[in-house]
Every structure is written in C-alpha cells, then in structure tokens.
C-alpha cells in the first residue's frame, strides 16, 4: 500500500499507457458487437497481423540500430500506414469469410461464434507457419527474412529509446508513453465524432439499433457491417503500431492475451459502447498495475477478472451500458 502511494504517479501513467492499447483494441470488439451482437474472436489476430506489418515494413526500409522517438518519426509514420492497411485488410477478410454468409442466412449466434474462433486460429497459424506457406508457394527464397523462424519472437529492427520529457508527481513521463496515451485519445475522439456526426456513423448506429428498420430506410447492412469491421481493424492497426513502439517485439501468438484483456475492457466499459471501451481499457490498465504493485505481479490477471465480475454484478451492462446497440428494448 505504501508502495502504491509512493509510486502512484508512475503506476498510474504506465497503467494508462497499457490501458490505451487495450482501449484501441477493445473498440474493435465493441463496434462489431454493437452492430451484430456478436463477439469477433478473430479481432485479436487482426491486431497481431498489424504488429507484423510494422516489423516487416521497417525491415523492408532497412531500418536498424537505435533511435530516439523523434528520430524514428518518419519510419513510424510509414509503419502506421502499413499496420492500418494490414489490420484493416485482415478485418475485411474476416468479415468476408467468417461472417458474411452466416450473418446473411441468419445462422444461430453460436455458429458464427465458432466460425470466428476458427478464423482466429487460422490467422494465427498462418503467421506461425509462414515459412511453410512461403515454401509451398516457392517464395521462401524471395521472402527470406520475413518468413524465417515464424514461431520465434520477431523484434522491431529499429530500437526506440524513450526519453523523459515531462515530470508528473515524482515520475518523469517518457516521450513514448505520452505519444501512446495522446494517440489513443485522439483516435477515440476522431472515431467518436465519426460515429456521431457523419452519415456513415449514422448508418452504423441505425443498423446497431434496429437492423430491419434500418434496411427499410435504405441502409445497406452488408456495407455497414463491412465498414464496422474496417474501422475496428484500423483502430487495431494504430494499436499495433503503438504496441510495437512500446514493447518492440511480437510473436504469432501475441494476440491471444491482449485480445482477452481488450475484450474484458470492452465488457467492463459496456460492450457496444465506444466511450465504454476507452473507459474500460484505461481502468483495466491502471487496475492491473495497482494490483501488481500491492499484491505482486502474479495477481494482475486475477485482479482484472475479479474487477470485471464485481462491476458486472453491480452494473450488468458494464460501466456505461450499451449505447451503440439497443439502449432499450
């Protein structure tokens, strides 16, 4: 407890950093749930593919050595574009092959759920077996570095060295931490505005609230669903870039743990609710840090889920409830 008080600023800020990544990934879960009332279990892999896009594009550009955050800004901007394209593209593929036919035929939810879980395994194993796949295609020679040792950790070719920039309490906030928190907040703000103010956001909300009435008012629900997956993928791509700046390493199975946490964050904040995803992510990140601080790091996962259960006992629809989806029957 004394430790928590003595290091309050540091634990809070580093918790916010992790929570920002949770929140951006949580958006993907919440958006798809809001529109389809389904959990997209393959979303964690959408994120994982984004992290690889960052590694690959920097390898392609020949980045190496160490650099300050500002020094690597050019590389990171390109990596961001690559990750967004990759994650957005993978999200569209998931929608097309794991969801569209089943949703159109009104398949029972559990069938679509299984289909998504299957997609998650396939996406993760394609990454984990990419050397073999390249081999089948006869591309192993060309792709070399990009596909070798597919099940090992892949590291960012340029190492980003964080620098202290801002004193908060007794903690010097690093530039990377500041970038991650601010980027996440900006993305959330932009998305919130997009959903609230643009005609596309209107259509997404309409389909979320009453798909049949929306289609009778001329909304093309297939397009709306596709758009929803795309936006979730774009957010996951941003999350992947920020994650790589912070962690600097990824693997074909990194999606799982992060996905579970992000999904927890989405439920905590109220699944289907965009602002809830942000709130849930940040709270979860901070709570994990506090619990690790007070009880020991092996308690972080336990704490995350105890917190979730407690919140759901008091507020069954999460902290902010479902707003994108049906606010009432």
């Amino acid at each position, binding site marked *: 407890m004394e430790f928590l008080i003595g290091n309050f600023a540091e634990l809070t800020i*580093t918790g916010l950093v*992790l929570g920002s990544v949770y929140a951006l990934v949580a958006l993907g879960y919440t958006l798809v749930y809001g529109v389809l009332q389904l959990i997209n279990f393959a979303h964690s892999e959408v994120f994982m593919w984004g992290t690889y896009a960052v590694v690959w594009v920097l390898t392609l550009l020949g980045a190496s050595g160490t650099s300050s955050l500002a020094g690597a800004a050019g590389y990171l901007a390109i990596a961001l574009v690559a990750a967004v394209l990759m994650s957005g593209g993978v999200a569209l593929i998931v929608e097309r092959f794991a969801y569209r036919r089943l949703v159109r035929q009104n398949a029972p939810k559990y069938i679509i759920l299984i289909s998504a879980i299957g997609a998650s395994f396939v996406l993760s194993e394609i990454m*984990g077996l990419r050397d073999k796949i390249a081999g089948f295609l006869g591309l192993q020679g060309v792709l070399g570095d990009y596909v070798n040792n597919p099940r090992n950790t892949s*590291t960012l070719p340029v190492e980003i060295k*964080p620098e202290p920039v801002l004193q908060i309490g007794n903690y010097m906030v690093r530039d990377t931490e500041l970038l991650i928190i601010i980027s996440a907040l900006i993305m959330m703000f932009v998305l919130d505005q997009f959903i609230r103010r643009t005609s596309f956001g209107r259509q997404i909300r309409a389909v979320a609230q009453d798909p049949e009435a929306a289609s009778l008012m001329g909304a093309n629900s297939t397009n709306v669903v596709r758009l929803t997956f795309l936006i979730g993928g774009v957010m996951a791509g941003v999350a992947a870039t920020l994650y790589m700046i912070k962690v600097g390493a990824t693997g074909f199975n990194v999606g799982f743990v992060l996905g579970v946490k992000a999904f927890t964050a989405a439920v905590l904040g109220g699944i289907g609710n965009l602002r809830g995803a942000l709130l849930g992510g940040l709270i979860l990140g901070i709570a994990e840090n506090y619990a690790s601080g007070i009880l020991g790091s*092996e308690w972080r996962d336990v704490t995350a889920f105890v917190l979730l259960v407690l919140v759901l006992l008091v507020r069954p629809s999460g902290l902010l409830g479902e707003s994108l989806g049906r606010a009432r029957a």
Partner: protein
Amino acid sequence: MRAIKASQLLVVGVASALVLSACAAPADTTEGGSGSTESFSIAYQGPLTGADAKYGEYAKAGIEIALADYAAAYPDGPTVTAIYSDSQGDPAQAPALAADLINNADVLGVVGPAFSGETEATEPAYSEAGLVTVSPSATRVSLSEQGWSTFFRVVANDGAQAPAAAKLLTDVVGAKTVFVIDDASAYGVGLGDGIKDALGDKVIGSDSVEKGSTTDFSATVTKVTASGAEAVYYAGYATDAGLIQKQLTAAGFEGTYASGDGSLESTFIETAGEASEGAYLTAAAGAAGDDFVAKWDALTVSDKGSIGVYSTEAYDAAWVILSGIGEGNTTREDVLAWVAGYDAEGITKHIKFADNGEIDGAGGVYYYLVKDGDFEAPVAID
C-alpha cells in the same frame, strides 16, 4: 539415408579422434555381433518452435554430432536415428508427445526433457514405461527427488546454479542490494528461491510475473526502480527476460541485470536490444570446445541446429544412450541399466550418476557477459 551416413562417417572419423578416445567404451566390450540390419531411435523432447525454440536448435547440434560419432565408433552397430519431438517446452503439450514416444517401440532412450516444467509433466509416464531420459538442461532441484527411476541429467541443478549466481552478483558485480524476479514456472520459482536463500538480506525486493501472460512489466519495473536495487536477477526464459530488461532500462534503471540459463540464447539479446549490453547470464554449462565446433562444421545433414548453451550437454546425454546401444543394449531395460551404471569421461565433465539421477560431482557454473550484441566466452564463477 545410407549415403548421408557414409559421408558423415568419412568426415567425422578424422575429426572426432579426441572425443572418441575420451568416450571409450567400458572395459568388458562384448561385440554385439552384426546388428547392422537392426535399427533404433533416440528421441529428443524439447522446444523446437515457440518462444524458446533456440534450445531445441542448440540441442539438435549436440545430438547430430553424437549420432555421427556413434556411426563412426560402432560401424557394425544397429542403425540409430533421432526423432525430434516438439513440446514447445510447454508442460501442457508434452504428455501427449511423450505418450507417442513411449508407444514407439524403436525408441530406446530420450535426450530430454529440455525444461523442468515438461519434465514434471512427463517423467511419471517415462518412469512407468521404463524409457530412460537423460536431460541436458532441466535444472530444477526437486526433479531428482521424485523417485523416478528413469530420470537422469548431465547438468548440475539449480542448487549449484543459485549459489553461484548469488556469488556472481555480490562478488563479481559487487551489488549490495538485489531485486529477484521469477516467472512462476517450475524452473523460475526453483532458481529464484535458491538465489533468494543464497543472498539472504541482500534481497531488497522480489516479484513474480506469469510466463507469457503479458508483455508489459511496468508494475515490476516500478517496484525495481522504487527499491533502489543495484542489481536485478530474473529467473525465467529469454523473451520475458529481454522485455523486462528493455523496459527497466527505458525507465532509467542503471544497475546490473542478470538472468539464468533459461535466458542464455540469442532471443534475449534480440528482444532487449541495446539494453542487453552488460547483462550477465549464469549457467552450469561451459563453452563448446574447438573440436566440437569443428565437428559441427563438418556435419553434412541438412538441418544440424546451431551451437549454443547446452549443445555439449545434449551431446553427452545422447552419447550416454548411444554408446549403450552400440555396446549391444537393444532393449529399454538394458539401456536404462546401462545409463544407471555409466561411468566415463564426457565432453563437459565426467559422467556418472547418483542413484537419484543427478550427475555425481557436478561441473562448475559459469557466467556469460553480453558485449557488442553477443555472449562473451564463459567465465567460471569462483
């Protein structure tokens, strides 16, 4: 298969003179007749893929060299091939793979299991089946206390590594305060606890992080920096070890970072990046000699692994079993008895097992310093 073997024979026959004499067969050599039509297997159980795949690669180098030496030393012995069984080092995946090996009547001995956790998960089955296992790298102390008749290891346990690691931190590094972190695995907890015991009141704080459950260690980092520790020891595996060191350095930690044999592979340096400079890694394993490297260079098999920590121990473990087969022990029972009674010079140390499967009179413990992005040659701690 035959063609490869023949060429191996030629090359290896010359290069391996020294080791051959060192591993000379026991006195009462009874020629096993012409068993050349027979064929058997030895198996390796350990991580060939996943975060710890490097250990499998390193072990493979030792096993392949041992196979080549076997073919040269016992030209008339049965044909022996290696089966590589990929547990990913995961105690959850290992039992099914062990069952496959047990059901394969050709398998006379196992080099492995590589990690302590998977050993705990599979040794009861091996023991029941009477299939001998000789681990090059499972170091948790308690493994030899379970009464498993088939458990042997050619590596000193963490009971030796822990005090040596503590000594490294206090005497070589000169740290007055140490923060100890373990990864909650069978190996990590055992090693971490041993180091805490050895360090006594120099331990200024400790934490436990779940292996593979996160990539963000900020709470742990805060604890370390808040404690003011001069050194950190991480008892766990390479990827997490690298991430923790990187995040510690980013948070301004300027003390010494050390970890154990679980992190002694290139993934650690790749993951930690520049932060890994000056890190110490301890292991009850020394370097491969020039002869060993020369033999490895001469191997012509397509996938011969690479040399790293425990390559030489894997060689010794494989050789203990292979020489038994070469001497005409072609049932599991006979091979088990052969291993239990083994008494000869190995390339890492003299190999003779106590009743509990521990190596009698262990070799030294070494530290490896990271410099210029690579591990420097090991230095004995003492």
